[in-house]
């Protein structure tokens, strides 16, 4: 049966074009791939290649014709053993066949047409996090630093699962730039505790590839400032592959390291990336403030089948806390914690921000204001329920973060409060953030650039109209 050649589209938006030139004439033999015509639009001239073999039986649209609609038959190709008479006999059938198997724009009804514009998007799934596990009565509490808690979490998970390994700069022989991986090389050997070259983009990608193949890497960034070199692999490869593969191929990987301001290291070593990563579907973002949470959440992060960004804080590494001595202390991802109960105002923070928040609560108590302080612990998925329950009780909220205000986590929290507890608010939500400047080096300026306890106290008082 003769085959129709249709007017092609150069892009999905093209509707018509001009048939500029025929490069073959009727009777010419045609091989697949031969250039048979040139078409033009206002944007470009393009060559039309034959994708069938045979003889050019008839030209249906003459050279120089303007505004030929996409998918109009422009010529007929005859197969072996056919001649011009087959065109006449077959013509209606042929064009009908083309219309069936290849619905032109006009005949799109044949194809399940996109209905997205009319169909409402389904509801996003609601994430429900479990509660923290009960700590059995009489459990021994061990005092340890956050640094030790993180190390123990990694060591326990590496003992449990041979697919878990750690890689990063100076994690092995040097024992970690901040000594978080201390002792791991000695226990697990250099197959599983791997010093990398200074190659953030490369090893973040290599780790992601290993995770796609089923291993469970813990990738340490010396600090998250350097992960900017790797952010393409983290977002485009680690976070999106599960979705782009229709659920076939995901990766269980933890990217961890200190995030945010340390002390006097200036602009390039002090950025807080909490809002950057918590913007990305496909990532989980965790940022603990205590040793116990660090341990329980890092263990959860390593077991989680998804890519997890684990934001630590250098200022907190040396802080000691009470960690329950349990065989397997794992905390739920996505669950905030009431760090201090109160009824007058809700202060929401995480990581080092909790220092300001808790100290401010102490100050406020002196003035008779009982602040409830929420430690988010996980930024994505964010535990909206805990925030909302508290705000419904207090009617007032202050967010505290070291990162910048615009598009910051505080902005997100305020929006969620507006969406879910607007009628309960007695004052607009206030936010305390880092000042929108690159972090200065000078001690006095650095102090000013970061949030302060006084700012948090003042904000809390102002939302209480005090």
């Amino acid at each position, binding site marked *: 049966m003769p085959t129709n050649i249709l007017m092609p589209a150069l892009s999905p938006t093209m509707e018509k074009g001009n048939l500029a030139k025929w490069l073959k004439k009727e009777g010419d033999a045609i091989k697949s791939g031969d250039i048979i015509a040139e078409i033009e639009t206002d944007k470009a001239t393009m060559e039309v290649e034959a994708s069938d073999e045979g003889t050019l039986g008839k030209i249906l649209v003459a050279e120089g014709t303007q505004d030929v609609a996409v998918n109009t038959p422009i010529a007929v190709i005859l197969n072996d053993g056919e001649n011009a008479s087959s065109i006449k006999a077959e013509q209606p059938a042929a064009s009908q066949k083309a219309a069936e198997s290849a619905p032109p724009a006009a005949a799109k009804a044949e194809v399940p047409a996109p209905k997205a514009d009319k*169909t409402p998007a389904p509801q996003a799934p609601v994430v429900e996090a479990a509660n923290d596990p009960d700590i059995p009565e009489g459990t021994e509490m061990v005092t340890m630093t956050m640094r030790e808690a993180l190390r123990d979490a990694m060591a326990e998970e590496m003992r449990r699962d041979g697919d878990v390994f750690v890689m990063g700069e100076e994690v092995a022989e040097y024992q970690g730039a901040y000594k978080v991986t201390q002792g791991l090389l000695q226990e697990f050997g250099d197959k599983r505790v791997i010093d990398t070259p200074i190659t953030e983009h490369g090893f973040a990608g*290599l780790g992601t590839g290993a995770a796609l*193949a089923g291993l469970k890497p813990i990738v340490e960034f010396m600090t998250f400032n350097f992960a900017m070199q790797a952010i393409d692999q983290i977002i485009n490869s680690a976070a999106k592959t599960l*979705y782009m*593969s229709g659920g076939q191929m995901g990766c269980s990987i933890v990217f961890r390291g200190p995030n945010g301001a340390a002390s006097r290291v200036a602009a390039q070593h002090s950025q807080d990336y909490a809002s950057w990563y918590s913007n990305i579907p496909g990532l989980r973002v965790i940022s603990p403030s205590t040793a116990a949470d660090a341990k329980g959440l890092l263990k959860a992060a390593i077991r989680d089948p998804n890519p997890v960004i684990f934001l630590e804080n250098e200022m907190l590494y040396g802080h000691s806390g009470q960690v329950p001595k349990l065989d397997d202390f794992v905390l739920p991802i996505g669950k905030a914690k009431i760090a201090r109960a109160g009824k007058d105002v809700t202060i929401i923070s995480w990581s080092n921000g909790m220092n300001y928040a808790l100290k401010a609560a102490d100050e406020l108590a002196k003035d008779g204001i009982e602040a409830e302080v929420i430690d988010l612990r996980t930024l994505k998925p964010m535990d909206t329920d805990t925030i909302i329950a508290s705000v419904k009780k207090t009617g007032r909220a202050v967010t505290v973060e070291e990162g910048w205000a615009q598009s910051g986590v505080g902005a997100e929290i305020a929006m969620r409060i507006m969406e879910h507890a607007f009628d309960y608010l007695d004052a607009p939500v206030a936010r305390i953030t880092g000042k929108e400047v690159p972090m200065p080096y000078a001690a006095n300026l650095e102090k000013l650039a970061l949030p302060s306890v006084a700012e948090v106290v003042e904000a809390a008082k102002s939302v209480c109209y005090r």
Partner: protein
Amino acid sequence: MSAVKAKSNTQTSDDPAPSTPLIEFSKEQDLSAYQTMLTIRRFEEKAGQMYGMGLIGGFCHLYIGQEAVVVGMQMALKEGDQVITGYRDHGHMIACGLDPKGVMAELTGRAHGLSKGKGGSMHMFSKEKGFYGGHGIVGAQVPLGTGLAFANRYRGNDNVTLAYFGDGAANQGQVYESFNMAELWKLPVVYVIENNRYAMGTSSTRSSAETNLSRRGLSFKIPGEQVDGMDVRAVKAAADKAVAWCRAGKGPYILEMLTYRYRGHSMSDPAKYRTREEVDKVRTSHDPIDMVRQRVLDKKFAKEEDLKKIDASVRDLVNEAAEFATHDPEPDVSELFTDIYR
């Protein structure tokens, strides 16, 4: 510069070492290579047509002209080996043995596409067939492929990873970060550089200080060679050597495939950066499929009628895929929020 014709494996420009000598194919090998290359070619032509009809959207990068590379490389692999590449990936999937229906239905964004319609032309995967994508960011597949090789080494198996990338991607920094780690840790990865002479509209001579890309691993001590990527026998011979090198635990290997893409970079390419004559010359004198066809006839491996039968069966396979991809429904809207987390 006639990249496609280069036959020498030049480690240094003034020291032309002989390339891996090609080994003649058996009848079965020639016929099977012919069939797979033709399937890729016909598939791509059909995809181009369907794009023209508005059934395929977005970016769609065709592999026409480069078929011998992926088919020859695949002939050196065994079960368990892995393949990863960029966005010009349809041919790789077909060579990996994936059903053209699933590939075509992904191109049309339908429910039974390989990624349920959520990935499109540039993002498709199959764990079962060892195909790890399908990546849209130029060069990103290179560290990822190195990581797949890392996993093989970690597990102590003898699987090898092929990481394909283009002449343009060869200028990405992450490629060299990967080369360094791969050699340092002796990872079993073959870097297959598909040098089709252009990155979009930029010829490699305009973008690369060293255009002999097989030399790009030298300072990392990675051996490399140039291969006539239009001759499937040359590709297979080089692949055998490189894969054996990796399997033996000697570390990575670089194969620079001198090849050529006939079509535009993607579907909307005004093709102003090269002449029609340049394209025609490769096409008429060095087409990877024509060369096998001629050889098969010359050696009397098959008669014209036998080849016509193969051609017809390939055409049917591709038409079925197109038919399927045209009528398969779009993904259910309930799929919007699935597969973000496991």
